[in-house]
């Protein structure tokens, strides 16, 4: 399946949020677990929305 630009953009958002969540989780000096929860939760959400876009594009009638 070829990803369209909307899907790429949503995946990019999820990736950035996941990366920031990982930084906050893995750098002990930051010590801010709330950031891990919120940015991590956001990453999961946008990944889910990317899945919705894929599902909709498969389900939509063609023609």
């Amino acid at each position: 399946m070829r990803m369209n630009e909307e899907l790429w953009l949503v995946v990019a958002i999820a990736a950035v949020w996941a990366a920031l969540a990982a930084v906050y989780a893995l750098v002990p000096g930051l010590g801010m677990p709330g950031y891990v929860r919120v940015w991590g939760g956001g990453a999961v959400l946008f990944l889910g929305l990317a899945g919705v876009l894929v599902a909709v594009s498969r389900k939509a009638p063609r023609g």
Partner: protein
Amino acid sequence: MDTLSTSFAPAGATSRLTARVASLPSADKALLALLFGAALLALVLGLVGGAVTALARAGALTFLPDDAYRILTLHGVSVFFYWLYLIQAALLLVLAAAENGRGLALRPLAWTGAALMLAGFGVSEWISATGTPLLYDGSPELAADDPRSVGVFALGYLLLSAGLVASAVCGIATVLQPRLRGEAGEFTSIGFALFAWAGFLVVSAIAATNAFLPGLLWALGAGPFPADHGTEWHILFHNLHYLPLMAAVLVWYVLSEHLTGVTSIHGPRLSKIVFAAYLVFVPPTSLYHMFLEPNLSESVRVVGSLLSLFVSVPTLAAFAIIVSSLEASARARGATGFFGWMQGLPWRNPAMANMGWAAVNMMIGITFAFVLIQEKLAPMLSDTFFVPGYFHFFAVGVLTQTFLAALMVILPALGGGSLWRPDLLRRMPAVVTIGLLIFGAAGITAGFMGVPRRVFDVGYGGMAPAAWPLLMALVGVGATIFAIAISVTVYGVVRTLLSLRPSGGQAPVVDWRTGSRGVCAVPAWTGPLSVAALIAAMYVFTIVAFQLIQSLPIIAIGGGHGH
């Protein structure tokens, strides 16, 4: 004089937006009217609280400390949370429904969301009026001996958050309908923006739950005292900076097309990238909120400073897209002159006037926002009156005026009535801006001089500098001016919401669609030059800020304040 041949749409002509809003099912119209009405009620409550607070800060009114902080709490809770989020939920739903063209999907969920948000509104207003005043950030440290106030206050925001999630899910489902029906293979730029905005609303609800659930659990005896509330609040607060701005820019896109027929000359792809950029930049730019933490390491401060430079990139990019699209379209129709092309915009339409002055306020607000978020200045300014001095340019000048502009277009279509006295309403944004300039100039100067925020009596037994009372009196004058002007607009919008008079024709719009003409080769410089002027202003005011603060005999270092 530079002239522009504009074709005014005939009276009664409707745009795609208003036609689709007018054709919504009655159940959707009832829900939207309820949400718009509740949002306007929150704005009225917040306006009253804000005006009284400003007059108290100016020394014109005197309150016992608890009452003063209760009024300040009601102001912040009403405006910053319930006005800004009820209106966002309502706008998300109405724009998604218009995008769908067939009304809301998952309508029961939308009603559930509205019920939750309204329940939160009631709970928050009640506890703010009767409980320990916690200010709008609901800091449990202010009521460590009153868990009931902490818990009920947290419950209000949690209900609001749950309602926002329900509204956002409904908005996402609605905007996907054209694709599910096979009528579209991809989103329009507005459709994609609504999809991303709805996702952002859900994330903000997650951040609110992260910040306020511990307070509720503590109050119920089910958890420890939420000692980290300040840090968790910063995360939520950071999202709350971006979310309404993204909504305002989206409304500018929608209104530009409604008022002029112009869509982005750069194509939907760039618009989608800009809207996605809001979300890409949210997490990396969050560090500057931690500049007030005394224990933050130097390396994090440096990284945070660098990343903070990206904070307004999406907003400025969207601004440049809209302005360059309008300018290029105007020039394609024969407009000339550096600023002459703007004369053809439908300024007699109050929605256009609101949007235009909102852009002016945005430029002023962003200039001083960049002064505040610099690592060396943030600790010295964040607990001063500089903060309310600059952020009212955003909260009132940009957001409130933009959302009211949207209501001026949507409500007549929703209810079938006509906009109340457009000739009067179109003059209000300039008055609002005059008031904000007085309020902001006095407030920002007071902040530079060290006047604290959230302190009602700044006389310090006669020890305070002589300029402080004068500056705070000017703050009161400016606040009174913009509060009156906004009140007139709100009255007009409420009259429009309640009006049953048949529409006597819509407020003027123009048709700048270039059609077969295409966009001409004349460059459109206003947008990029505005951004360049903004950057120059940021440099100037940063230098002024450093000079002013270094000239003061006392250096104050703030500590861990929660904005």
